[in-house]
């Protein structure tokens, strides 16, 4: 769905200007069922947006490029003249896509549960390259920096691939063979990723030994965010940690009271952290002092009346979060309150 914040704040009927929805379906049936029908498909990754184009990878194993103008007019999909496409172009699918697609220049990068990374042409959806099988399955979101694609895998590897042809230019493996659960983040030549044993690893690209590892009380499920030589990493033990990127020293921690399963978000001079319970906090990234954003109707309830398992995003000081109640919430972090909510119901 495409939602216009201005229309939602005025509570206009959906779809208002620039708003649209498109249902992605896939053939279903099989098993004991004789007939084949189509059903809506789960989308785990965050859509990547490039001007009028929206790129989505679905759990059925297809990548879609949707054009906002064509979708607003509810035209048949795909509208080739609007650069709409899907990949693979046949009825075949690649493995389930869990990570988010990433745009870099004229290419889209997606990971698949078949263990490969795919690089697709942004305009036409043609495959530029596919990597070797890097793991039994890849659920992480690739990180693109310069001419390299960085990947973390469940079997304990970090890879740097050439963005040109997908060849492996560097790899790192944990000694204990413990896998990486989070997607990677890259900052000044160092890659950061959380592992299944509750450690956050920092590995200098090109090296074979970790620079440091930081032990949290549980897994670092979501990708960390790095800024000003500080790593901000949410842990399933309910703490957000600020760690010195150069040596792994803990600078501060803040307990949000429930597991953190989405990456924190830096908005201007604030760090926005969403706890799975629905509470959202605005924290000073330097001091680690923060405040909870108030609920729309009841101060005693969590910020959002639903679990939060989807990454927040921000625009012009407003943070948008999708709750597991299938509603989109808009939070004004300056005012420290929820300003509107909108049910994301499909046709």
């Amino acid at each position, binding site marked *: 769905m495409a939602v216009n914040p201005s229309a939602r704040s005025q509570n206009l009927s959906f779809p208002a200007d620039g708003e649209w929805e498109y249902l992605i379906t896939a053939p279903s049936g099989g*098993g004991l069922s004789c007939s084949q029908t189509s059903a809506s498909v789960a989308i785990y990754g965050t859509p990547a947006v490039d001007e009028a184009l929206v790129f989505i990878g679905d759990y059925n194993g297809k990548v879609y490029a949707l054009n906002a103008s064509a979708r607003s007019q509810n035209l048949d999909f795909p509208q080739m003249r609007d650069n709409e496409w899907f990949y693979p172009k046949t009825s075949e699918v690649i493995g389930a896509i*869990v990570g988010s697609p990433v745009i870099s220049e004229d290419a889209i990068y997606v990971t698949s549960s078949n263990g490969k990374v795919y690089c697709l042409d942004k305009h036409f959806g043609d495959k530029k390259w596919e990597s070797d099988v890097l793991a039994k399955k890849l659920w992480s979101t690739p990180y693109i920096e310069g001419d390299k694609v960085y990947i973390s895998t*469940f079997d304990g590897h970090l890879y740097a691939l050439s963005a040109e042809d997908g060849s492996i230019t560097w790899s790192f493996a944990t000694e204990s063979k*413990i896998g990486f659960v989070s997607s990677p983040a890259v900052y000044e030549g160092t890659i950061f990723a959380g*592992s*299944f*044993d509750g450690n956050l690893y920092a590995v200098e690209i090109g090296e074979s030994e970790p620079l440091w590892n930081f032990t949290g009380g549980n897994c670092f*499920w979501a990708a960390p965010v790095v800024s000003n030589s500080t790593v901000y990493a949410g842990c*399933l033990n309910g703490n957000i940690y600020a760690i010195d990127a150069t040596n792994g020293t803990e600078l501060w921690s803040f307990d949000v009271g429930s597991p953190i399963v989405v990456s924190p978000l830096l908005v201007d001079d604030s760090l926005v952290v969403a706890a799975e319970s629905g509470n959202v906090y605005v924290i000073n990234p330097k001091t680690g002092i923060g405040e909870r954003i108030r609920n729309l109707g009841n101060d005693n309830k969590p910020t959002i009346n639903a679990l939060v*398992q989807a990454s927040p995003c921000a625009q012009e000081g407003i943070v948008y979060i999708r709750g597991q109640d299938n509603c989109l919430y808009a939070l004004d972090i300056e005012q420290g309150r929820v300003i509107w909510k909108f049910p994301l119901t499909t046709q």
Partner: protein
Amino acid sequence: MAELWNLIILNPMLNGLIALSSVLGGSFGLAIIALTVIVRLILLPLTLKQLKSTKALQGMQPKIQELQKKYGKNQQKLQQEMMKLYKEVGVNPLGCIWPMLVQFPVWIALYQSIMRALATTPESLLNLFQHLYSWEVVAQAIPLDSHFLWLNLGSPDSTLILAIIVGGSMWVQQKMVTAPSADPRQKSMNSMMLLMMPFMFGLFTLIFPSGLSLFWAVSNVIGIGIQYWITGWGYLRRGTSAQVVTKLGGKGGITKGP
């Protein structure tokens, strides 16, 4: 209540299953087989008690049938006489049921453990972390490889092979203990039960993830082994109901071996 269940039963079993997988070279299929064997060994005393009670009850069948003939029209008297008979022989008619009931929570926990451990979707993997111990051997095994032989342990087996193994092994196991009856009504009911349960579980195999079906198949094979140890092939290789009734009469038991 749910937290207590997780703490005492589910979490130890789940972590044990994942640790086993790690020890067995990352094969979740082998871990399911090994855990099924371990669980059946732990429950062996209960299983033996159940089998012995069943065997004793079957041995009493001729006497029970005599009583039914004699007091068939007076249910109250029949019940009294049957209770008297149970007391004389020293058998509790519920003796073969309660060991089975005790095993149910273990089977449920095993089912939950298999389903949770496979964690085929992101949310199920996330949920799994709420149940894991901070053991390195557990962390090393996550996420588990759901492929074993021709099976994807997280999906039903569409080849029918596992359904035939589960249904067939269940039929054999039941056939070994189902005493043929001279009573036509009982006979027809026995025949129906003998087919219905294997058919149902065969059908479940086509619906439930094959990890669970693998557990059923291994559990059935172990059950057949235990049963053979106690009773031999039992009624699987025995003749007509009349012969069986004659053989079972008096001593009140099934002899081992054909």
